[in-house]
């Protein structure tokens, strides 16, 4: 098993994908942190209040600053998850992978562990970008850089977990849709457009809010920010959100393992 994991880590590190993605993750963290650190205020001016910007505690400002970019971060990790299996189908390297590790569930398990490790790695890169850029701007503006360290630190550590879980969701999607490009388009389309729209639509009906809070993006927000961005009160606690995300990842990995076990590799 250890050898199979090492091989998966090597596969990820020996193409240009990994550092291309590292730059993208760093940029997503830094740019969103710059934006958030510049516009958020404890007491919004009248104009902002008219636009519905709520009053924020220092903790909310800091959390928002350091984690907002993770919406792009987790989509990038989902793409990495898709590509760890999608590129094997695309370039037919799946044949060689299965010759070396003929036990198919073992191959998937090795990919799962490697992706969780890469979730941590990319999470650290993300935090370097977001905390580095965000803290600089906040301190220049005279705002608190690290209020309520315990709670804030929890959010930052959970970034590492969330990114890994989204990579697993991508892995399952990549097995489900073997055409890599199609899988990426579907994954990004659902994460950025379909799911948020659906969330808004569902929230229109009376019972909708209690359903929408289980959506992946909302569960992710619950884990990272601990408060709802749109001010709605209907949000999971951070640990419930984490459990929901783990559930999604587990289901996608299970589907991926099931299909991989049964497929002919031609």
């Amino acid at each position, binding site marked *: 098993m250890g050898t199979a994991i090492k091989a998966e880590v090597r596969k990820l590190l020996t193409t240009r994908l990994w550092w291309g993605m590292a730059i993208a993750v760093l940029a997503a963290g830094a740019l969103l942190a710059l934006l958030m650190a510049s516009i958020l205020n404890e007491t919004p001016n009248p104009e902002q209040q008219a636009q519905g910007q709520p009053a924020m505690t220092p903790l909310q400002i800091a959390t928002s600053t350091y984690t907002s970019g993770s919406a792009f971060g987790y989509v990038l990790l989902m793409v990495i998850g898709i590509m760890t299996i999608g590129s094997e189908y695309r370039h*037919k390297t799946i044949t060689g992978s299965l010759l*070396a590790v003929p036990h198919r569930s073992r191959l998937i398990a090795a990919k799962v562990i490697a992706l969780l490790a890469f979730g941590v790695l990319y999470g650290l890169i993300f935090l370097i970008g977001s905390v580095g850029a965000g803290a600089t701007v906040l301190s220049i503006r005279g705002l608190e850089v690290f209020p309520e360290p315990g709670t804030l630190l929890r959010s930052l550590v959970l970034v590492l977990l969330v990114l890994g879980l989204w990579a697993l969701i991508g892995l399952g999607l990549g097995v489900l849709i073997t055409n890599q490009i199609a899988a990426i388009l579907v994954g990004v389309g659902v994460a950025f457009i379909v799911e948020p729209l659906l969330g808004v639509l569902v929230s229109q009906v009376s019972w909708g809010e209690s359903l929408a809070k289980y959506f992946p993006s909302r569960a992710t927000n619950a884990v990272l920010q601990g408060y709802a961005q749109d001010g709605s009160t209907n949000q999971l606690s951070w640990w419930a959100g984490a459990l929901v995300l783990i559930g999604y990842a587990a289901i996608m990995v299970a589907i991926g393992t099931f299909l991989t076990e049964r497929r002919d590799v031609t």
Partner: protein
Amino acid sequence: MDGRIDVRNLSKSFGTFRAVDDLSFSVEPGRITGFLGPNGAGKTTTLRMVLGLIKPTSGTATIGGTPYTQLTHPISTVGAALEATNFHPGRTGRDHLRVIASAAGLPDSRADELLTLVGIPAAARKRAGGYSMGMRQRLGLAAALMGDPKVLILDEPANGLDPEGIRWLRGFLRHLASEGKTILISSHLLAEVEQTVDDVIIIANGRAVRQGTIDELRGEKRVRVLSPQSDRLARALSDAGLQVRPAEGGGLSVIADETAQIGEIAYRAGVPVHELHSERADLEQLFFQLTENTNRNLGDPAQGFAAPQEGGR
């Protein structure tokens, strides 16, 4: 483990299409076995079933008595090269081999050793996307040899190799077979492997049409002789204890190893000889006869199997 490949009643259907149909054969250690058949005969499908990549509809395939998927050290037991395109174009040849090395628990140094062995050390740092066909074949072969396996399974290994490469491959496979390894190579060209293989398995439409040693396939050596006094010559040859029959297109066909022997018998019998040459079954012709008119991929599905025919003429 003795490294024998055993295929028993192996069948595979893709939907309603029967790609491999009740195929049975075994491949012996210390010999090179050619697995032959025209395009679409089911060679690659069979090899992929042997390697646990395709699930058989029925039947079994084992290596040294064990199915591939249950081997404890697959890379160090069986080396396989299936297609020349199985590389990530962005990964260098060395990294490709190192990925295999780490999966198999082999030292990284194996990668460079193998690149040198197959003659492409300079390709180590080059991304596989920029490889020529021959370089891909060699990299595939290097990957197959990484674990110094006892069994080698190569799908069309000569494709894309230059004449020098083919000659090198021949010698190399001979060397490996002499070490007692089991070697199975597929090809759609009998002529390509004729000089390399000891045994042949010929399939058409997913079924075996002929199995045996290459010498059995060639049949006995014959000498053809043309004389204006055919009857007298035939009698003289029969008297000398040789088997004679009229040859197609005139003359006599005699079972004999040497033309000199026939020439001397004719000289002693005082029969003039106009033509004298040795004949061997034309294997390419034989191959064609065994597999012609039956290719389901070329339409005419109503056409049945042509019964396997004897000899090359």
